């Protein structure tokens, strides 16, 4: 009874989450950010540049994977619960007779859905524009980076969603994590590759299009299981935390 009711509630919570995430001014800014790879693809097309590796590292890796993906994921991932905690409306969600894991699953699906849509679409449009000069290899690279965006969205959003249940400053901490761990340290220290979402997503992308070994350090057969483990651990942790969730300022 509880189980079926919880499952039945998921689509509605997803719908509410989508409305909460998208109806803000920041969505416009994120759309602009997602437009940057497209803009660069137009520049490449205008120059009739046929350098697949240059397009892949300069646009798809440097802008889409390094910048667009973590920023979109940190904003949507922390806002899925963060906005409800801030407004206090999470009370109405938790008071319903719905299992907490179902709430986590629904919030996760909503946030992952928007993140994936925005990032994968950005890479797809950019790749399609640049398809003319690049040809078949360009299509392979585009597919690879679409896979990277998919894996990266699932990984980042899971981590940030969980983080937002443990601290109210999740957005700042997530930003520092993206800049320091994923940005600076994962390029300086190769050993971090096994613990970096960026490397997981690039590793999966390797299955579609082989990248330079110092760019994507993991093989697809290592990266995908690691990413799945990360998502499962993060979501179990989130559900566990939500079961013990105390509303801020609930003592008075």
């Amino acid at each position: 009874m509880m189980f079926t009711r919880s499952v039945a509630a998921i689509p509605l919570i997803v719908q509410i989450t989508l409305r909460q995430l998208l109806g803000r001014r920041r969505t416009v800014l994120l759309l602009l950010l997602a437009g940057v790879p497209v803009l660069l693809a137009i520049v490449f097309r205008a120059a009739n540049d046929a350098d697949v590796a240059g397009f892949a590292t300069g646009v798809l890796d440097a802008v889409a994977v390094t910048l667009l993906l973590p920023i979109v994921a940190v904003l949507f991932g922390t806002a899925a619960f963060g906005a409800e905690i801030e407004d206090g409306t999470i009370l109405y969600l938790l008071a319903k007779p719905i299992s907490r894991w179902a709430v986590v699953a629904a919030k996760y699906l909503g946030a992952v859905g928007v993140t994936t849509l925005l990032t994968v679409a950005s890479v797809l449009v950019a790749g399609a524009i640049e398809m003319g000069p690049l040809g078949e290899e360009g299509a392979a690279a585009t597919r690879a980076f679409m896979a990277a965006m998919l894996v990266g969205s699932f990984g980042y959003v899971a981590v940030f969603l969980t983080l937002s249940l443990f601290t109210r400053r999740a957005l700042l901490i997530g930003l520092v994590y993206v800049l320091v761990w994923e940005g600076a340290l994962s390029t300086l220290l190769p050993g971090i590759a096994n613990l970096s979402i960026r490397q997981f997503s690039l590793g999966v992308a390797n299955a579609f299009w082989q990248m330079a070994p110092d760019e994507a350090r993991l093989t697809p057969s290592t990266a995908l299981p690691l990413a799945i483990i990360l998502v499962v651990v993060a979501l179990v942790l989130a559900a566990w935390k939500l079961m013990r969730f105390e509303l801020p300022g609930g003592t008075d």
Partner: protein
Amino acid sequence: MSATARTAPAGNIYDLGYRHYEGKRHGRWYAVWSLYVEGMRGVWGFGRPMTAKAAPFILTGLYALPALIQLAFSSIISQSIATGEASARDIATYSDYFAAASFFMVLFLVAQAPELVCRDQRYHVLPLYFTRALGRADYAFARLAALTTAVFMALMVPMIALFIGDILMKPDTLKAIGDEWPRALPSIPASALGALSLSSIALALSSFSPRRAYAAVGLVAYFLLMGIVPDVIFQVGRHAGWDWADKLMTLNPTGAISAAADWFSGAPLVTTGRDGGLPATLGADAYVLAVVVSIVVFTAVLLFRYRRMPA
């Protein structure tokens, strides 16, 4: 009505009839000065808990770390240069320091610029400022001056460390000061220009969000995009033979500031390098111009934002 109109310019302490104020009234400029001092203390976290001091001091320390290491090992470095183990070109100089360590300075701005302008909007204290003798432009300029001074101080820490280190490397201290002084001096105007440029960008962008975290995300996005996008377009344009693409390189704030530092010190621009370097077609004066234009534009944006902001 006429009574309030007559007394309004003289003072900004409202006498509601409960408690009278007989003391000295310092007026508008004293209010601006107070806001400036308070802003400076806020950037460095003075008068706040230790957690507020952590970010500015740690990031300044990380920014200055290479120079401090060079200072600490200056005697060993001078020995290895003398024996030929190290080349004099390997050590950091005043004009190329910012380019190498600017990541931490950008983080400093991402952490501290929202501190100055976001909280006042979020907790609705701006009306309290604006109903005093302080105008909206005064508020914006006081905040900008506070952040610029703080960033300038942070930028000067490694310059002073390099100066002391270079003197200690020489056998004759007094003569070394005389030799080193003209080379170190250009770093002062270069740092001032860089501080004003970075601060105007960071404050103007931060002022659009009342939430510090969102402002920080916006700043990160702006600085990273401006570091990548012009460079990518320039590299593409170089292969395609576009002669306009080189001018885009002046849009990168940190790149333009470090090239402007070369203009002040007279050092040649690095036009070759691992990543291709700066375009050879642009002189250092183009970057100085770009930095000045960016200061004017972002200060105008900041003033515009505060003019239109609902208090």
